[in-house]
């Protein structure tokens, strides 16, 4: 699926690039069409799941992370890890005192 130049640089094959592009397009179609169904609270998680698969495909193949030094992937993924930490703590914090701000929260 891939070739190398004489200097040892990884070159992605055309077949791979086209395949990834088509999968990403199908993913976009899937993200839009899945909103026409009501899965309740699962809707957002299904959408986020598809988006994350798309992001991983872009990272692995378009951005060459699959053939790159693992440390580069570690740097990039660590940014997401800290982002989740940030979001997680912010949500814990805001959830902790919503019932003081909004009477009757959480809304049924």
């Amino acid at each position: 699926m891939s070739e190398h130049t004489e200097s040892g640089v990884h070159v992605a094959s055309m077949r791979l690039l086209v395949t990834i592009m088509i999968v990403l397009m199908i993913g976009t179609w899937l993200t839009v069409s899945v909103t026409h169904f009501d899965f309740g609270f699962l809707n957002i998680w299904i959408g986020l799941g598809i988006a994350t698969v798309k992001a991983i495909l872009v990272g692995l193949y378009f951005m060459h992370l699959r053939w790159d030094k693992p440390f580069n992937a570690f740097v990039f993924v660590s940014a997401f890890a800290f982002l989740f930490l940030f979001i997680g703590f912010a949500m814990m914090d805001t959830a902790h005192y919503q019932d003081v701000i909004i009477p009757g929260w959480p809304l049924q």
Partner: protein
Amino acid sequence: MTAQHHDGGHDPNLAHHFESMDQQRQSTKLGMWLFLATEILFFGGLFVFYTVYRGNHPEIFVFGAHFLDTALGALNTVVLIFSSFTIAWAVRAAQLKQIKLLKWLIIATMLCAFTFMGVKYVEYSAKWKHGLLWAGSYNPHLDHEETHDVVAVEGEVHTAEADVEIVEIDEVQHVAEGEFVEPIVTEVAIEPVAEVADSDRSTIAPAAEGPGGLATPEAVVAEDVMPVEPANARIFFSIYFMMTGLHGIHVLAGIAIMFWLLHCLRRGDFDTGHFTKIDMLALYWHVVDIIWIYLFLLLYLID
């Protein structure tokens, strides 16, 4: 300079503080990945803003998403994914020294970027016309080019476009912090509906009705009057403009860098197979794409 420096000849692209082209490339790449990590965190603050607000006030997002056109958002997603493909192909072309192909792939990517910004312009201007803006600038109103000099009274109204009977005018709707929006007017057509062109059917549009770039026509027909605006609906538009605006600035920066790359190409920088510049722009462009994949989902696809 000793012999152990520079393995195999003197590459003009090799800076003197690097041992080899490979070391130089790896260092550049690591620097780029560190920059991209800070980009994720840069947008991260806005994603936290989004998550906290949506977690506490989901109704604002359900209301606000009515004003975003999913078709235009999906079009932009497709355009960006395709541009990601062309720039990934451009990296391959640069690696294989296919200079002519490389030039056309950079141009194709730029055309996609301009298309993206063009669609964004259509979306932004539709919101601008209706005052669906951020924070204090949020002042939803009818587009004055679309309104007619019709005094909103209950009874029959005859204009050049259509004859309607206004059956009910709600009280001017109070929204948060004492601001007013247009009164919600419910009217019915006197003439048979089929004789009135769809676009002219309503001379006094509901407060939220708008042209392409806003709600879909089906939604307008089905609901006629938008759902009641929740308090602080402006927050949605603040988030929308901040996130898509920051993203749009990144697209513009990408366009500027691609202009520079074309200049480098003409200068012959890539003739030696030195593809680092293309590679770095491509990495940046893919991050712009990844962020848009999430923005499209989180802003447009709310039901």
